[in-house]
């Protein structure tokens, strides 16, 4: 049934975005700014020892238009659990359950010296996309920093999921095939450690990461 009243409602404008500025750490990661204030901090470790799924680490750097490694970037990620379910009430995919030990959200800053950011998480399962089409396992990224006027959205996919990636409805939306590779994190096995996926983000110019208008 058409909800006509809703359709006639005036649409307000979204509040204008503004840059996160150079001191974003104070608000969102005060420990990185150099002080302790909150009892509980939101950070880059998404798992505890009871979380289900394959432990992975994501590492990368963020580059500007002339290849400079940026050291003042804040990144947030959002992902499904190992079964491919989001810890959110709007996800009602049949047969998949929430993992009480996994929210699927994390926040990291690029290091002030090396520019490296990292997340400790698990590899997500596949989520059903629009029209019932499976999406390849992926993690949503949101990138803010000084000089970024509106937060940038992108997705990270996994190099060891070539078949699923080839069928992914979002990757296939990118008409320039050579740009698709910018979304694929490369898996590296490290001795005695968890597998690491390298995911570098290029804000501008050669090899520019695909960003989405969601």
């Amino acid at each position, binding site marked *: 049934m058409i909800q006509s009243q809703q359709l006639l409602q005036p649409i307000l404008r979204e509040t204008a975005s503004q840059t996160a500025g150079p001191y974003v750490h104070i608000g969102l990661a005060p420990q990185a700014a150099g002080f302790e204030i909150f009892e509980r901090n939101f950070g880059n470790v998404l798992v505890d020892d009871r979380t289900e799924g394959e432990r992975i680490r994501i590492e990368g750097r963020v580059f500007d238009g002339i290849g400079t490694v940026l050291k003042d970037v804040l990144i947030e990620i959002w992902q499904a659990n190992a079964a491919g379910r989001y810890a959110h009430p709007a996800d009602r995919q049949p047969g998949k359950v929430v993992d009480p030990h996994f929210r699927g959200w994390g926040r990291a800053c690029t290091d002030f010296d090396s520019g490296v950011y990292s997340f400790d998480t698990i590899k997500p399962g596949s989520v059903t996309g629009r029209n019932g089409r499976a999406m390849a396992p992926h993690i949503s990224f949101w990138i803010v920093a000084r000089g970024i*006027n509106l937060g940038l*959205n992108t997705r990270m996919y996994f190099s060891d999921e070539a078949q699923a990636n080839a069928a992914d409805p979002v990757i296939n939306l990118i008409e320039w095939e050579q740009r698709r590779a910018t979304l694929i994190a490369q898996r590296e096995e490290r001795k005695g450690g968890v597998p690491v996926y390298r995911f570098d983000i290029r804000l501008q110019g050669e090899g520019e990461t695909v960003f989405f208008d969601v």
Partner: protein
Amino acid sequence: MTFAPPPLGRFPQPDAEYLMRDTTSHPPALAPAYKTSVLRSPKCALISLQQSLSEVTAPVFDASELGPLDNDLILNAAKDGLPVGERIVVHGYVHDQLGRPVKNALVEVWQCNASGRYRHKKDQYIGALDPNFGGCGRVLTDANGYYAYRTIRPGPYPWRNRVNEWRPAHIHYAISGNGWVQRLITQMYFEGDPLIPDCPILKSVPSEEQVRGLIALQDRSHFVPLDSRAYRFDIVLRGHRATLFENRVQAPVEGAST
């Protein structure tokens, strides 16, 4: 009332999607007067994505994750006294583009102190640090989308853009709503600040109407007598559009084509 979904076409899709982002509400990625944006703005057009579960879901926060003083910047870093500066309450509503309250939204704020100095190891401004002021806080909106916190009014400060560039006094906001696409970072300014018209960051906002939306108004009705003044700042996040049909399909339709 029952509704049989068509075998082909729009089902299944997320229960509810968010309205397409109106990019004219925001500063462009490249705003040359704000020099840092020149090398940090993508040159390629953004790829437009129809929303899936990945975009309409978002982390859910619980009040137990916040501390009792997280929304009180006057006290949450005080050591041996109160911070210096004008005491203010900032409050308002977070709603979506259809005017509905956004409940349980995480509102995170950060700012410099009354001298214009941030408690950040990278801030070298000569303005003094205040031993009793941290400059960050956070609060969850209630069932009406309402939030409030108490703080010290921040000072203006110089920054390196042009030689004699000054930021109007402002408080940074990061808001996490109910869907990933509602995530928003912005800054709140203060009514009457003479630095507002000359700020290249604020001037990158494409319309006067949108700039006005970033300026908090003094709200005399919420002054705390003999204690604090108050400012009102409302926030609009992306609109949440329920599906047009009330009977939603819960599971993928067999044989649905794309």
